[in-house]
């Protein structure tokens, strides 16, 4: 029976409904201590004095540790995937409110927490900068010297740079935009902004380090265990094989738990106290760890009178917060798609990653794409309305078709953009008349489409181990954080080996036995690890055939593996171990022009249609229907794939309508679930989900990534529906009732008093 394409339940389903699923959150080890973190109360300042004496004197406190103490076990305690800019505990300076400054270790977490309250720190406050555009020219400099990690070639030129907050500038030029604007019938220019928001995984960040004999084991809720191993080894000056990283299931990730987060701290503390140490953040503390980039995106288009876009200029400022994390990659990898999935001859992109004195910003379900789609799909809709062209027609006229070059010059392949657009139009249904209402409640509808390149070039390695009874285990470091990777990878193994997917055992990451994977991020696993798993299973299959030949079995005979082992080894014994490594081909964008003939192995396409009701007296927007369409090639598990669609769209709905980290003088004023609301049962509109019938020809069994695709279009589709309903255009996220009401009242010529 075909295993790929089956909509089977998640392999770990039973453990999840019984409460017995294994998360790092649950982990307790003999002799384990707990650490709590003392955090900065100022957004930018020099550390004058840290007084830990009262904390250290509290009965039950094992140790109080500051940044200087960390140096005793890690002399250069700066980490990060793109820049080595983040100290394990603050050294000399603090750069954002909530930055870890000291840690208290105790056997009782309540004692550690109480001791944290007894620490006193004095800072000499420095001018701070919070806005990404101001950060370009601000006198407030977040980092005195830039320290690129050396991992990425396009960051090398920033090494040693001083007096700047720019952590990467990416530029792309194709054709001549100035000339094209001059010759265009119309030129439109708008600026859109998006807010700081966060992942808010329900299993908050948690890690445990366990010192061993010449090694250390890190148990962590992390999406990139192989990177954790490399980065901890680098910090300690050890070999990779002295660092063991174990990752069970994750209680949500969404891009928060990529690269290293708590791991350097727990390792340093465990090595200092020589006992296992656990750090488990509270929900509030998650607001000081990693967030979604706020952005300012100025977009300008030249258009013919019949709606063909001839030129587009994109200037994107990404607010990276106090530490780079993976922000520079967001700036570049997403930056080159800023003009949208449109066929435009003349393009100019300037994308800037900025340091500011906010909580660091990284990857959040879309790696920057939702911020871009927010701008280009609102902009595209405004143009259509101004020119009196139907928004679906406007897009159909301009979309990138197969074989046409994207902004980088890479020719589109297996990107079902038009199919997604058609499916949206059909399911809305766009051609049918739509009742916009007349009274207090007005109705509107809107659509948006977006696309994303994969993170390239990245590597995945997998091992398939067939035991003598014929049962198969899969060793891989892909992290299952709810997206269903364990299940679909088991389906791939089962398909190749012709067994039942439910009978494949998927090992959770233990870097002592699971090989390298770049990370569970950017919707890359199905494609990259999917290939590695396929190759490993094919290798195992070939080795089984070789074993059968060694055993003297005639080729082509259909012996079950268990009999092959017995025939070859005279008893039930032995293993067959297949391995597979996958890296796609790639050409990095040219340093000056940004051009590349092969910038990504595949494109993800996502589109959203929204129907809304607006209460014109209160400004409240109610989404009455959401249509989510994506191209994920041919899904390995259609049921799990569909839940990724509705889940991604709902998360984006929160970012569209209400989620917002509110900053006041650098302080987050709503750092709790009481004040930062996320979508609940009552916020979910009726949804229609569709995966278009497509095939990724270079993908494993025709499949490609999906986890982020449903997030792309939600915000602009709702903004476009709002314009359709009441004729107002919001350019900032989120679109709260207050923002809608202010715009409505301004349009009516009777602005709210404080807007007047």
């Amino acid at each position, binding site marked *: 029976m075909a295993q790929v394409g089956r909509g089977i*339940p998640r392999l770990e389903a039973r453990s999840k*409904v019984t*409460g017995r699923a294994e998360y790092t959150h649950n982990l307790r080890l003999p002799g384990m201590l707990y650490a709590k973190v003392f955090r900065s109360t100022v957004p930018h300042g020099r550390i004058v004095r840290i007084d830990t004496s009262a904390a250290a004197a509290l009965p*039950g406190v094992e140790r109080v540790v500051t940044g200087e103490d960390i140096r005793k076990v890690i002399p250069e305690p700066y980490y990060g995937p793109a820049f080595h800019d983040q100290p394990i505990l603050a050294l000399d300076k603090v750069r954002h409110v909530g930055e870890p400054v000291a840690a208290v270790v105790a056997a009782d977490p309540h004692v550690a927490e109480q001791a944290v309250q007894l620490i006193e720190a004095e800072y000499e406050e420095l001018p701070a900068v919070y806005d990404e555009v101001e950060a370009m020219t601000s006198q407030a400099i977040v980092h005195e010297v830039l320290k690129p990690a050396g991992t990425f070639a396009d960051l090398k030129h920033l090494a040693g740079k001083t007096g700047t907050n720019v952590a990467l500038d990416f530029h792309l030029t194709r054709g001549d935009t100035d000339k094209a604007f001059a010759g265009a019938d119309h030129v439109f220019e708008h600026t859109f902004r998006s807010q700081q928001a966060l992942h808010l995984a329900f299993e908050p960040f948690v890690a445990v380090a366990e010192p061993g004999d010449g090694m250390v084991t890190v148990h962590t809720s992390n999406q990139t265990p192989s990177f954790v191993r490399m980065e901890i080894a680098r910090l300690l000056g050890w070999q990779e094989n002295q660092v063991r990283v174990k990752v069970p299931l994750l*209680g*949500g990730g969404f891009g928060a738990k990529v690269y290293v987060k708590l791991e350097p701290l727990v390792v340093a503390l465990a090595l200092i106290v020589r006992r296992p140490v656990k750090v488990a953040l509270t929900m509030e503390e998650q607001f000081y760890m990693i967030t979604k980039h706020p952005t300012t995106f100025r977009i300008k288009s030249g258009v013919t009178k019949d709606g063909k876009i001839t030129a587009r200029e994109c200037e994107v400022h990404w607010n990276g917060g106090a530490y780079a994390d993976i922000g520079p990659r967001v700036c570049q990898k997403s930056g080159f798609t800023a003009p949208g999935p449109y066929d435009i001859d003349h393009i100019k992109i300037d994308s800037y990653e900025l340091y500011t004195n906010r909580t660091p910003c990284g990857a959040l379900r879309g790696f920057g794409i939702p911020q871009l789609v927010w701008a280009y799909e609102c902009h595209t809709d405004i143009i259509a309305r101004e020119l009196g062209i139907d928004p679906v027609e406007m897009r159909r006229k301009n979309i990138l078709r197969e074989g046409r070059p994207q902004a980088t010059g890479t020719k589109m392949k297996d990107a079902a953009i038009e199919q997604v657009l058609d499916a949206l139009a059909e399911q809305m249904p766009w051609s049918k008349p739509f009742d916009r209402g007349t009274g207090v409640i007005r109705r509107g509808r809107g659509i948006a489409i977006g696309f994303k390149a994969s993170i390239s070039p990245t590597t995945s390695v997998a091992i398939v181990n067939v035991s003598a009874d014929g049962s198969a285990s899969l060793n891989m470091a892909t992290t299952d954080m*709810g997206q269903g990777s364990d299940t679909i990878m088991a389906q791939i193994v089962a398909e190749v080996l012709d067994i039942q997917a439910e009978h494949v055992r998927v090992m959770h990451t233990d870097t002592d036995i699971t090989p390298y994977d770049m990370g569970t991020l950017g919707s890359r696993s199905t494609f990259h690890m999917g290939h590695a798993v396929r190759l490993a299973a094919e290798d195992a299959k070939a080795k089984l055939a070789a074993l059968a030949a060694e055993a003297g079995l005639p080729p082509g005979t259909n012996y079950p593996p268990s009999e092959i082992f017995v025939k070859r080894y005279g008893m039930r014994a032995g293993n067959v171990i297949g391995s597979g490594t996958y890296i796609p081909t790639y050409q990095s964008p040219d340093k000056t022009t940004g051009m590349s003939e092969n910038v990504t192995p595949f494109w993800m396409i996502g589109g959203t249609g929204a129907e809304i009701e607006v209460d014109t007296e209160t400004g409240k927007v109610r989404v009455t229907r959401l249509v989510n369409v994506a191209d994920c090639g041919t899904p390995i598990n259609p049921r799990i794939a569909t839940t990724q669609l509705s889940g991604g769209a709902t998360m984006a709905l929160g970012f569209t309508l209400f989620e917002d980290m509110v900053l006041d003088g650098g302080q987050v004023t709503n750092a*709790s679930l009481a004040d930062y609301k996320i979508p*609940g049962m009552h916020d979910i509109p009726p949804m229609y989900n569709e995966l278009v019938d497509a095939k990724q020809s270079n993908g494993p069994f025709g499949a490609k990534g999906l986890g982020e695709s449903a997030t792309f279009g939600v915000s602009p589709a709702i903004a476009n529906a709002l314009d359709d309903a009441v004729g107002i255009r919001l350019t900032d996220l989120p679109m709260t009732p207050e923002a809608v009401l202010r715009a409505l009242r301004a349009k009516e010529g009777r602005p709210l008093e404080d807007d007047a």
Partner: protein
Amino acid sequence: MSVARTIHFTLNGRKVSTEIEPHHNLVELLQRFDLFGARESCGQGLCGCCTAVVDGQPVSGCLYFAVMVDGKSVTTVEAFDADGALSKVQQAFIDHGAFQCGFCTPGFVLMTHQLLQDKPNPSDDDIRDYLSGNLCRCAAYPEIIAAVKAAARAGR
């Protein structure tokens, strides 16, 4: 930090006792018995991940002092498959894929049991009402609603 006292209560049908300090919450108490289905997440009684049932009443374990269960009866998600078989609610959650990461799932399972005990044939509004105190960041809400309906049809 403070004075421990001994409490006696019924945990998933079994009489137990332990020493507990006054500041410990119900989640910490349950962890002492190696029960990890109730999980502290938001710490404010808003997400529902820490749901447990005390004397028939669902409570937020993160806000419920452990000493308050003295003499009472506590039920956790681990009670439902104590005999090795899943409850109909649990089976329906699996059949309908009503979770992704699974971290919030025990809370939803407990509240669905509570709902179907109070209202064996719940309306859509009943479902949303009973489950509005449980949040799912993966947003498996449509699948959860389908699972609750299926469980109701199957009779819990």
